[in-house]
């Protein structure tokens, strides 16, 4: 039970002080610490002039190549050392590469019991014909979850760095439009015709790559990247009015949140059962069918949605800094 204090009593409590300190509405030092008011920096004309002349003289002296022997020496040494550094780096890397086992050799350390187990039991345990997808999204699904989050965090960072405040001036929207027009040509016939022909095929190919990730080469990341590239082609041909009918910042937020949450939940279930997939109740189905291999199809779709949204958002942020 909490009791309600009268305001003057409440202002003396620790929690109130902590709250004001956290809000920044009260500076704890004001009134408690002896402070001298800061005096304004004063410079008269003569000192400023002297400073400027000093600066000029230093520059002239430093870049006077005929008399400044230190500078000449530095420039020569700089070149010599940069060359030396490059040669050293290349030698180090070449020595490192030379120590690697020959390409495709059978008894190199990578071919140990782990990969053997993946190859022998992968199909049986994960139900995915494509062993790589089985590894990425089943044995090592936790790593892939981290990768999806890395992508999401990268988008957040791009949003923080490149987002432009929409209300710039009185007619902020028009200004943004003018800014965008300066950088991207609009109504380009060649681009529009090519986009009209290509975009459906690109997006269908991306969806195919995602959905058949467990049957053949491909998977969530590559399919999502292909779909993102198709969306970028579409938006650069037809402008933002067309894409904003179906893809806005809100859509992106909901999509990536939904996909990441779905991934988390399904993988949490997997870890709950011991993370060994032996007691999983989800049937693996017949290998080779599209509805097979347990959760892998769902996880592929989640990753694809996140990646496609991320690619498109990157483009939008780089181009005009906001949806």
């Amino acid at each position, binding site marked *: 039970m909490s009791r309600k204090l009268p305001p003057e009593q409440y202002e003396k409590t620790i929690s109130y002080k902590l709250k004001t300190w956290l809000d920044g509405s009260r500076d704890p030092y004001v009134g408690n610490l002896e402070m001298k008011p800061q005096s304004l920096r004063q410079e008269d004309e003569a000192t400023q002039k002297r400073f400027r002349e000093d600066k000029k003289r230093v520059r002239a002296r430093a870049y006077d190549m005929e008399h400044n022997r230190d500078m000449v020496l530095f420039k020569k040494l700089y070149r010599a050392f940069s060359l030396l550094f490059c040669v050293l780096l290349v030698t180090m890397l070449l020595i490192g590469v030379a120590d690697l086992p020959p390409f495709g050799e059978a008894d190199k350390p990578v071919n140990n019991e782990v990969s053997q187990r993946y190859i022998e039991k992968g199909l049986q345990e994960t139900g995915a014909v494509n062993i790589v997808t089985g590894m990425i999204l089943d044995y090592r699904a936790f790593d892939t979850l981290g990768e999806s989050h890395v992508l999401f965090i990268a988008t957040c960072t791009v949003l923080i760095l490149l987002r432009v405040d929409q209300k710039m001036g009185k007619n902020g929207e028009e200004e943004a439009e003018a800014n965008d027009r300066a*950088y991207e040509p609009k109504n380009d016939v060649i681009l529009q015709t090519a986009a009209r022909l290509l975009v459906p095929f690109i997006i269908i190919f991306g969806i195919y*790559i995602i959905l058949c990730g467990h049957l053949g080469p*491909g998977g969530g990341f590559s399919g999502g990247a*292909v779909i*993102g*590239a198709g969306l970028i082609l579409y938006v650069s041909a037809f402008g933002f009015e067309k894409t904003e009918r179906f893809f806005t910042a809100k859509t992106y937020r909901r999509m990536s949140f939904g996909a990441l949450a779905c991934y988390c939940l399904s993988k949490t279930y997997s870890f709950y059962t011991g993370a060994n997939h032996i007691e999983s109740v989800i049937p693996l189905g017949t290998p080779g069918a599209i509805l097979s291999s347990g959760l892998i199809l769902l996880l592929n779709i989640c990753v694809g949605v996140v990646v496609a949204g991320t690619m498109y958002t990157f483009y939008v942020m*780089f181009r005009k800094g906001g949806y």
Partner: protein
Amino acid sequence: MTVFTCILFLFLIVCAVAASLSKSLLNTVLIFMSYSLVMSIIWVILEAPDLAITEAAVGAGVTTVLFVLTLKKIHAIMGAQAAEKEAEGELEYRRRRNS
């Protein structure tokens, strides 16, 4: 190693060196894109089609688009004179809009 692979590797090395030595930033981006394309062919030869698809979509596609966009934003694609002219035109456009 077939002759085709050797040619691809040679092209890769030439691209890598040319990208770092090129004076124009746009040329660097385009050389980098061709590097990615050749790299994706090499992934197919090395029997990693998963990686090849990703490399072609991300390395040759999206990264190049982002690079070119950035170059456009910092006026690195056109010459200095054209950039000045365009900036003037943009200012004029805004002035007309505002008045």
